[in-house]
C-alpha cells in the first residue's frame, strides 16, 4: 500500500494494522526516515518537500510491485510525506511483512534504497540566507545499485 500525504502518521498503529489478522506473517521490518539537522554552516529551520503528484504514486507503486516480485511478502506499506517539515519530523515510513525475517528485512532495505533514487521528491531547506535546494548524493545511486539483479 502506498500513501503520499502531508500529515504525520502513527508508527505503532500502522505496524499493528499491517500484520493484523494474518497469521502467516512471522516478521515485520520497518524503516523511519527523519528530518535531520544537516550541519555544516547555516542553521536549517525547516525543510519543504515538493513532489510530482501522480508520478510519485506511480513510481512508488512500481517499487512496491518489484519488491513483491523479488520476495515473498504478505504486506508492504510505504508512506511518504510532503510539505513543510521540521528537524525531528518523520518524512518516510517503509514496512514489510513476511513469513520470514530475511525477506522482510531485505525488502525493507531495498524499498528505501529504491525510493531514494526513483520517487520524484525534492527537498529544499529554509536558511537565514534563503531557500537552498538539497543536492542529490552519488551514494544514493550506489546504494540502489547493490540491488541490481545479475543477468
Amino acid at each position, binding site marked *: 500500500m502506498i500513501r503520499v500525504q502531508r500529515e504525520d502518521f502513527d508508527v505503532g498503529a500502522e505496524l499493528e494494522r499491517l500484520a493484523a489478522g494474518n497469521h502467516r506473517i512471522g516478521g515485520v521490518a520497518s524503516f523511519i526516515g527523519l528530518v535531520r539537522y544537516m550541519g555544516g554552516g547555516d542553521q536549517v529551520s525547516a525543510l519543504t518537500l515538493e513532489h510530482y503528484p501522480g508520478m510519485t504514486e506511480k513510481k512508488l507503486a512500481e517499487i512496491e510491485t518489484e519488491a513483491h516480485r523479488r520476495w515473498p511478502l504478505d504486506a508492504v506499506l510505504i508512506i511518504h510525506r510532503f510539505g513543510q517539515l521540521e528537524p525531528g519530523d518523520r518524512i518516510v515510513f517503509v514496512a514489510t511483512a513476511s513469513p520470514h525475517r530475511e525477506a522482510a528485512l531485505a525488502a525493507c532495505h531495498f524499498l528505501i534504497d529504491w525510493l531514494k533514487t526513483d520517487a*520524484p521528491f*525534492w527537498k529544499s531547506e529554509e536558511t537565514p540566507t534563503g531557500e537552498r535546494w538539497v543536492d542529490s548524493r552519488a551514494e544514493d545511486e550506489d546504494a540502489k545499485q547493490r540491488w541490481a539483479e545479475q543477468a
Partner: protein
Amino acid sequence: MKLLYFAWLRARIGCAEEEVALPSGVRDVAGLLGWLQSRGGRYSEALQNLSVVRVAVNQDYVGREHPLREDDEVAIFPPVTGG
C-alpha cells in the same frame, strides 16, 4: 503538450506548468530541451547545465532520445532528493 517544472528548475524558470504546441522540428526530448534553451532569458539560464536535468514523459523517466507527441505530459526537474 503540457510542460511541468519542479524544484529549482521551477523556481528559476518562474513557472510550474505551461501548455505549448509541439514546436515544428522537435521530435524527441533532446530537441525539446534545445528548443527551451533557445527561448532565452530564464529558460536558457535554468537549463544551462543539462547534466543535472531529468525528464519524465507521461510520468515515466525517459532518455534524451525518447520521441515526443503533441498530447504528452513532459516534466523537467533536477535529480530527486526524497526519502
